[in-house]
């Protein structure tokens, strides 16, 4: 039993710890592939958190609490919180003001943002979600948030 737990913990590391410095080129099934590579991947979520700051998502969404844009850390999802839904929101935009970022950011960057956004409402595994930032940040870091449905 003990060995099963140990093995489980170790194998989980494969998913969490992989650094995809070079994501494969887009293919027909890239939507699924991108999602699979970034979901529960610590590096992807960490990059996503950096990009969230760089691309000024906080301008409308604050640090997840929302403002001009809806809150991202709660359990209300206008357009669904499946990874594909969030990806579409980012890349195609949505009515009521979400701009389309297609042509502005890469698919890999979008998937990293998707992974991070999901972690904001506690949907990422706790051992992979980002910890606190090295900056002033209101609220709990993502690895301490419970899953919101």
């Amino acid at each position, binding site marked *: 039993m003990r060995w099963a737990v140990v093995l489980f913990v170790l194998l989980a*590391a494969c998913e969490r710890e992989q650094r995809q410095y070079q994501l494969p080129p887009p293919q027909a099934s890239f939507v699924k592939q991108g999602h699979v590579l970034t979901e529960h991947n610590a590096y992807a979520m960490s990059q996503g958190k950096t990009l969230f700051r760089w691309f000024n998502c906080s301008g409308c969404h604050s640090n997840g609490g929302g403002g001009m844009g809806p809150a991202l850390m709660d359990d209300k999802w206008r357009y669904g919180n499946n990874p594909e839904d969030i990806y579409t929101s980012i890349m195609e935009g949505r009515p009521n003001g979400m701009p389309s970022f297609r042509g502005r950011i890469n698919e890999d960057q979008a998937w990293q943002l998707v992974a991070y956004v999901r972690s904001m409402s506690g949907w990422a595994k706790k051992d992979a979600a*980002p910890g*606190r930032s090295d900056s002033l940040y209101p609220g709990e870091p993502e690895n301490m948030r419970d899953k919101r449905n």
Partner: protein
Amino acid sequence: MNPVLERTWRDPPGVVGWFSSIDHKTIGRRYLVTAFAFFVGAGIMAALMRLQLARPENTLIGPDLYNQLFTTHGTVMMFLFAVPVMQGMAIYLVPLMVGSRAIAFPRMNAFAYWVYLFGGLFIFTCLLFNFGPDAGWFSYVPLAGPEYAPGKRADVWAQMITFSELSGLLAAIVVIATVFKLRAPGMTLARLPLFVWAMLATAFMILFAMPSVMLASTALILDRLVSTHFYNPAEGGDALLWQHLFWFFGHPEVYFIFIPGLAFMSSIIPTFSRRPIFGYPAVVMSLTATAFLSFGLWVHHMFATHIPELGKSFFTAASMLIALPTAIQIFCWIATMWTGRLLLATPMLHMLAFFFILVLGGMTGLMVASVPLDLQLTDTYFVVAHLHYVLIGGAVFPLFGAWYYWFPKITGRMMSERLGRWQFWLFFIGFNVAFYPMHHLGLRGMPRRVYTYTDEMGWGPLNLLATAGAVTIAISVLLFTINAVMSLRRGMLAGENPWGAGTLEWATSSPPPSYNFDRQPIVRARDPLWEPPLGELREPTAEPTHIVGLAEHTREVLVTTVQDAIPDHRLAFPQPTLWPFVSAIAVAIMFLGSIFTPWAIVWGGIPVALFATLWFWPKREETDAAIAIEKRP
């Protein structure tokens, strides 16, 4: 051979018995074998790194794996090889050298070993599964902090530190208690072998330094796991705090490794010069001075930061000053050799290598002790060369020599002299070919911790040379392993004292029986086997030469006073038990769990507390046996 004593003190048989052993010799051997295995593992990592660096723009190993390799190489070598192997030598030899049947706190000693083993296995496993630590062996924040080190790699590092802290601290306590309270009657502090003095100094240093890194790594885990702000500058924390806390431990740490090397020198040189060491009091005071001074040097690892220059100058002066006690010891050893009759066997060759390699490393140490020079040399390959010269020259060469020297005592067989010489020369030449060019690389601007470099920097040829040297080192370590394994089966039988040495561990069979000595000696001189009444020039005397009267059917040990080793009282020692092993497993689960969730401390603490309670629960038979021998053994 005393069958009653043998039955009282031996390890119980069988698999359960193997896990229950609390014999210091068994635990000491386990430390040595485990540490050597980790040494080989970390050495393989180094070989991989050198293969990657052999050519400019090489594509053998990418940056992610390379960063894990150099971090784990440093971490394993410093925390899981160098310090534990020295503690293992102390655990095996100190009770024998002070004439005791046992080590103090034998169950805690066993527990410390198991914690060490689990910590080491853990970090190797993590590397294999792609979450080995990758922020350097001293893991600076913010790179190792929650924002810039995603995943669990840095947590693995920090928690492994906790394992090795715990193990190191407990082993240090065991050594101090043994040296102070379990010495043979008559072994006053002034008659303590220099090996024991050095291990005592090391143990005290460990006691004072390790809590600093435990604090640092705990704060790092808390920052990462539960978002405290110890190292977050935006919230009042400080990235430099990490450096101070780490190096306050980190500088003494290299002396935990170096001072035992001095212990080996002071034990082996007199034996192979056929005379007692010159300047015993000077050597003792030098060891003590080194131990104290080493706590005042730590900022020299931080000279490139913006700490005020006046403060840094103090640490330049201190770093230069600490060369003096080592110089004294070097002069005393040279005086010993000069006036003695030398036997240049393999152990002695390794000690001679110290004078070349460590002294060269000490010279480069004086260079980096100066703030302005360090501002150019720090964080380059010059420092990599310096640290390997002092650590390998000051500790690893004496360690290998010590293994050749004490292998006969531990196993009963001599190692091959021929293979030993081959191994020595390959190691010596390979080491210099590998590390000397690194001085030049540093002077030519090659920084540390780079996974590759461009061709036009011109660093290619020297890197290739260094790689060739590294391969030679690997061959020499392989030769050593072959020598050890072959000699275990087919080495010449050693007898009690094959080297004609003077300290007490040679006054018993090789390997020693489970009870160490048939009759525990009473000591009246510094090198008991060389001087009367135990030595050759035995004079008839009415004074007793051995202890009589201790119980033989139960584990009874004589406790003596600290300064003059006057018999003080008799103490009943514990029987072999599984609790140290089981408790170590519980502690390991608690530590490993706390990498993932803080609740592991709470839930994991329950079995630990339970097992600790059961460990110490008094047993009726043991109490009865102790009472029975109280008035009359």
